[in-house]
C-alpha cells in the first residue's frame, strides 16, 4: 500500500479542534487528502462504505477524537478493530485529557498511538514515526514554519 495515496480521516466534532488539527497537519508536511467526519457514526459510515468524491478503495489513516456525539471514539475504535476488514486501519486517538484509564482502554482495543490535545505538529511527527509511516507519508518541510518554540 502506498501511503501517499492514503486519505486522512479526521473524526472530530469540534470545528475549532478540527481546524487546528488540519493546520498542524499541513505544518507537519502532510500532502494527503483530509476528510472530516463529525461524529462516530459518520466515521464508521465513511470507513465502511466510502463517501462521494473519494476513490472507492481508499486507504485511511484515522485521527479519532474520543468525545463525540452519538458514537464516541472509543466505540468506533472497538468496532473497527473487531472487524477484520477494518482492523488494520492505523488509528491515532485524540483526546483532551491524559486520563490513564482512558488511555489504557484505548490501548486494550488496539489503538496504536495516543495524542493529547492541543495537538502540536511535533506530536504528529512522533505519532507517525511510531506508526512507522513517517518517511513515506511526510514531505519533510525544509523550514517547518521557522523556529516554533515548544510550549
Amino acid at each position, binding site marked *: 500500500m502506498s501511503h501517499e495515496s492514503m486519505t486522512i480521516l479526521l473524526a472530530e466534532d*469540534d470545528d*475549532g*479542534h478540527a481546524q*487546528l488539527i488540519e*493546520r498542524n497537519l499541513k505544518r507537519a508536511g502532510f500532502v494527503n487528502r483530509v476528510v472530516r467526519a463529525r461524529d462516530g457514526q459518520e466515521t464508521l459510515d465513511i470507513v465502511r462504505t466510502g463517501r462521494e468524491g473519494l476513490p472507492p478503495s481508499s486507504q485511511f489513516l484515522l485521527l479519532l477524537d474520543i*468525545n463525540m456525539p452519538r458514537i464516541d471514539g472509543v466505540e468506533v475504535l472497538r468496532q473497527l478493530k473487531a472487524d477484520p476488514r477494518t482492523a488494520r486501519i492505523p488509528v491515532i486517538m485524540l483526546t*483532551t*485529557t491524559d*486520563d*490513564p*484509564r482512558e488511555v489504557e482502554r484505548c490501548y486494550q482495543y488496539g489503538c496504536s498511538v495516543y495524542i493529547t*490535545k*492541543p*495537538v502540536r505538529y511535533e506530536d504528529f511527527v512522533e505519532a507517525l514515526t511510531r506508526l512507522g509511516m513517517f518517511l513515506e507519508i511526510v514531505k519533510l518541510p525544509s523550514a517547518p*514554519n*521557522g523556529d*516554533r518554540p515548544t*510550549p
Partner: protein
Amino acid sequence: MRIPPERLAEILDVAEDGIVTVDSQHQIVLFNRGATKIFGYDPAEVLGKSLDVLIPLASRGVHRGHVEQFARGPVVSRTMGERRTVTGRRKDGTEFPVEITISKLIVEGEILLTAIIRDAEDRKKYEDALLRLNQDLEERVRARTAELAERNLQLTQKTEENEMFVYSVSHDLRSPLVNLEGFSEELRIVVRDLQRLLQDERIPGDLREQLDALFAGGVRESIDFIRTAVGRLSRIIDALLRLSRAGRVVYQTQVLNVGAIARRVVDAMRKTADEKKVEVMIGELPPAWGDPTAVEQVFANLIGNALNYLDTSRPGRVEVGALPDGSPSGSHTYFVRDNGIGIPEAYQSKLFRALQRLHPDKAPGEGIGLAIVRRVLERLGGTIRVESVVGEGTTFYFTLPAGSQ
C-alpha cells in the same frame, strides 16, 4: 468476754437473715424474727408445721427430695440453688427468689436441718436492672455505630459525587480550552509572520514603524496575556483533574516495602537534591499496607515539597523516618522532616486544601499536592498532620495501616 450459752438463742432470734430449722419429719422447730420479716408468718403460726408452707406448691416435691438427699449425705453445709434460683412463698401467697445456705446438726440422735435464708428479690431486681441497663447500652452503641456507618457511607458517597462532578466539569472545560490554547498559538504565529512581511522594502518606513508598534505593543502583548492566562487555566484544570483522579483511581493494595518506595523517590530527586546541596536521610521504615503507586505519590509530594521550600541561609536537611511506636492501633507513623522555611501557624489549617499556595514564588505549582496527599491517605485508611516552626522547619507525620511482617 464469753457469751453465756443461754443467750446464744437470742442472737439467733434477732438475726436479720431468716433462720429456719426443721426436724427429720420436715417439721419447723425454729423460726426467728428474720424469718418472720421475710415470710410474713409469726413463729406461732408455723412452729410444728411442715416446711412446705414456705415453699411454692409446684416445687415442694423437688425441694423435699433435695432436702432428704442432703440429710442423708456426708456434706455438713452448703449453699442451695448454686445452679438454679430457689423460690420461697410468703404468707400472702406471693413467691420470691431466696438465697439459702443449709446445714445439718445431729441433736440427741435426730437430724436437724437449719436453713439461713435471705430475700434475694432486691438483689435480683438490681441484677435485672443492671442486665437491662447493659442491654440498653449495647443497643444504643449498636444503633449509634450503625448511624455512624451510615453517615460515613453518605460522606463517602458525597465525596465521590463531588469528585465525579469536579472530574466532568474539568473534562468539559478542557475542550474549549484546547481552542483557546490552539488559536492563541495560531495568532502568535500569524503575527510573527506578519511582522516578517513588514520588513519588505516596498513598505514605506513610516508606515512600517506604525504597524510594527501596533503589532508589538497592541497585538503581541494582548496575545501574550491571553496565552499566559490560558496556560494558567489549563494548569488549574489539570490539577483539579489530578485531584479528582486521586479519589477515583482503583487501588491495588498489598504489603509495601516502604523503605524501598522512599529510596526510589529520593533517587529520582537525587539530582535536584545534589544541586541544592541538600542532605537526604532515610531511616528504618516498617512495612505498610497500601497501594504502591499511591504511597509513592505521598512520599514524592512530601519530599518534593521539602526540597522546594528550603531556607537558603543554612544547609538543607531532609529526614524520612518512622516513629518507633510499634503499632498499638495496627498502624505505623512515618514522617518527612525538613529544616526549611516553615509554615506559619495561621496557614497550617489551609495546608491540605486544594488550590492553596503559601509561597508561589518559591516553586511552580497549583497548590494541589498536599490536597492529593491527604485524599490518598484518607483512602488508604491513614491520616496526616503537620508540625512546623517558621525559620526552623516542618515535619509531616502520616499514618498507614501496618503491613504484616
